[in-house]
């Protein structure tokens, strides 16, 4: 089930009413409802793959219990490896098998031998990378004795499958989310209202901006040979907004929905395009994944507290893994590697934690230097996004070269109809609204539509703004709901 569909608009109030009015007396029942609601939510896409989630949950639940009752280090390690094997095995089979098989065959061709690659005709289960990482973090934390394993199977199943964040994150840590299933949730009026604001803002980003950007972005990226430089540059910039609004929009809706049920999920985005350097960008972009790799890969490898060559190695490892997590394609790997290259100078100079204070602190606008650094960082991310969006590595390089060399005289310009042009200009206006609202909210957890109003005028003006945003969302809705980009990861 997609958040931006009518089905979800009906599903959410039903689950909400059952949760607070029918199942509210008993915590177990409430958790049971969450499991059921989550499984229905997932089955809407394909019920067959529900078995993977259930299997993966049960394995980690029992391994967690076994880890707690075993003191022998060898046995504990074996249990951890078993969990890794099952989780990464699923991921490997469904997501990476064909990539390795094809590249293996190609490598043989390179050495003059020819073998046929064996590929599996399987579809990628939605959200597999997200819930796999979530359950793995549980087992690793239990293994490291940072977490006491749960004996409450209902809570554990609900933690793995919690529907707001099941298919596209945030990738929750058991230490944050699991304990929330043990406690009785109390309804809080202001938290729930905040949740609604966040859902509205997420829908605005997804439907009104990301889906509209995708029309032009797809047209240009799918046929980039035919477009002039300005169109290519424009499409690359629009893709930066598309992917941000698509993914952070999903996170906003997920976090907002969780608030309606009395849960607090971790923040996944913190206005990343206002970052002043790449290190800051990665502290603000897909925070739940970045911190996952930091805690479970980077720090165990020694982090930055090792000799320089190992520091460089560690950075490349986490960025390349992060790229590979997104998909089995060299473009993602290169995207990761490119970000590592961007990141390295500040790490080696020790300036990677330079920009931790608020942007334009206590000022309305950034200073010239700060603004320039924001622009520079944005430019670097746009270049990297070209690799992320392109089908092949050579395609990405070609796209970038043509962005500088496809002059209008030798190529035909993208010809937009009047309707498309109007739509495009309107989307640009909405991007400006997005940037404006994010800028004035940059010190807050999320954007609230009432941020501009004084307490006295708040109720009426908030209603007015909400109406405007809903109107925009409805008008911008595409007739067919568009999948969230991160579903494919």
């Amino acid at each position, binding site marked *: 089930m997609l958040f931006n569909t009518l089905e979800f608009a009906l599903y959410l109030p039903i689950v909400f009413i059952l949760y607070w009015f029918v199942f509210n007396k008993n915590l177990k029942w409430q958790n049971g409802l969450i499991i059921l609601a989550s499984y229905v939510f997932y089955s809407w896409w394909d019920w067959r793959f529900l078995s993977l989630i259930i299997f993966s949950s049960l394995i980690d639940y029992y391994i967690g219990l076994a880890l707690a009752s075993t003191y022998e280090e060898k046995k504990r390690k074996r249990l951890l490896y078993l969990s890794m094997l099952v989780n990464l095995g699923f991921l490997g089979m469904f997501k990476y098998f064909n990539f390795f098989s094809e590249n293996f065959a190609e490598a043989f061709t390179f050495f003059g031998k020819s073998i046929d690659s064996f590929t599996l005709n399987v579809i990628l289960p939605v959200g597999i990378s997200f819930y796999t990482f979530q359950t793995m973090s549980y087992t690793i934390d239990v293994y490291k004795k940072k977490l006491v394993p749960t004996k409450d199977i209902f809570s554990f199943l609900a933690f793995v499958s919690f529907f707001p964040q099941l298919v596209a994150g945030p990738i929750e840590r058991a230490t944050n989310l699991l304990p929330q299933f043990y406690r009785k949730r109390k309804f809080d009026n202001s938290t729930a209202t905040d949740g*609604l604001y966040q859902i509205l803002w997420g829908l605005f980003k997804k439907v009104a901006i990301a889906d509209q950007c995708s029309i032009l972005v797809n047209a240009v990226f799918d046929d980039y040979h035919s477009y002039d430089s300005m169109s290519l540059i424009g499409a690359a910039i629009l893709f930066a907004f598309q992917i941000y609004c698509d993914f952070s929009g999903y996170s906003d809706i997920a976090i907002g929905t969780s608030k309606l049920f009395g849960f607090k999920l971790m923040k996944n985005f913190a206005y990343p395009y206002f970052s002043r350097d790449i290190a800051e960008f990665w502290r603000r972009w897909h925070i739940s994944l970045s911190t996952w790799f930091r805690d479970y890969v980077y720090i165990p490898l020694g982090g930055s507290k090792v000799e320089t060559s190992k520091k460089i190695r560690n950075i490349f490892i986490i960025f390349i893994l992060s790229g590979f997590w997104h998909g089995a394609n060299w473009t993602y790997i290169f995207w990761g590697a490119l970000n590592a290259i961007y990141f390295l100078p500040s790490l080696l100079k020790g300036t990677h934690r330079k920009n931790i204070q608020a942007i334009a602190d206590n000022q309305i606008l950034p200073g010239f230097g700060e603004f320039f650094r924001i622009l520079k960082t944005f430019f670097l991310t746009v270049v990297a996004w070209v690799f992320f969006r392109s089908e092949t590595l050579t395609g990405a390089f070609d796209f970038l070269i043509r962005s500088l060399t496809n002059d209008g005289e030798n190529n035909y310009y993208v010809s937009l109809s009047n309707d498309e042009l109007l739509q495009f200009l309107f989307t640009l206006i909405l991007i400006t609204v997005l940037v404006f609202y994010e800028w004035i909210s940059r010190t807050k957890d999320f954007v609230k539509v009432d941020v501009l109003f004084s307490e006295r005028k708040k109720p009426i003006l908030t*209603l007015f703004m*909400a*109406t405007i945003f*809903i109107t925009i969302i409805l*008008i911008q*809705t595409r*007739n067919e709901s568009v999948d969230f980009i991160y579903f494919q990861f």
Partner: protein
Amino acid sequence: MRNFILKIITGFVIISCILYGVDKLATYGLSKSKFNTFKDLNELYENNINAEIILLGSSRTYVMMNPIIFDSILNMNTYNFGQDGATIHLQKAIFNDVITYNNSSLKLIIQNIDLTTLLPNKENYSKQRFYPHLDKKNLYTNLYNFDASFWKYKYIPLYKFSSSLSMFGRGLLLAFDIPIKENYTKIKGYRPSNENWNNDFEDYKKNLNTGKVVYDQDLLEDGFKILEEFIEETSKKGIQYIIVFAPMYIEMNNMQIQNEMLKKRLEEYALKYKHVYFYDYSNLPMNSDKGYFYNSYHLNTNGANIFSKRFANDLKQNSIIKK
């Protein structure tokens, strides 16, 4: 909790009222539009059509039958209600209203029939022309029976304007009588297509493995049933009903191996019912000349004018129109 629910309900009601109000306003504006998409049905529901002959069908009627030529040769007011992508199922949905709201005594209905017209196809047709009139019970019921997704356009506020900002803006401006540019480039519902032969047919052939086109016979039979409903209703209302197989590029005509069956069935209808006539233009010499077509299914303006003249003259010579 009570406060929250109350807040949600109040907010929902207020916002819904505003959204419905804006929707009504923009829809009302569209009902006054003279723009290509809306003018024909707007005129119909304003009782301004006054046609004695109505041309029905898909794009093959829409771009291939020029009503001005019918007017001049038959000396009767003609209007083209053909629509891009409209199969017989969709044509049936507006058929009753075309008769009811046409402010004149309708004498003749001419409908182009070919194999694709008989197949149920809910894609590739424009829904927008119906949006200002979804409050008409009969039209809405028929459209809903054809495509259930129409409920969304009727009941969800502003949904009909999704991804069509210009339509929304047009509706709002017209609602307040603010003048805007309203291009109507059609001629009494007919859209001339002054184009040369393009590559569509060559691309189509490339994707066709067998070189033959065969459609599902059961689906075609369902289409025939609807055609029989047309025959029945025109008979009840005393309207003459002319079925025409308009020119099709010869190669495409030969590729569709069920065309002979179709024409035989249409001839049988003409023999069986007194008010039904069948005109077959699948073998005109012009059908082998790409100069008259812009693709295998559609004549260009020149071809459409020649065909319209020929067809209108045939009707005149056969004196089948009851005056």
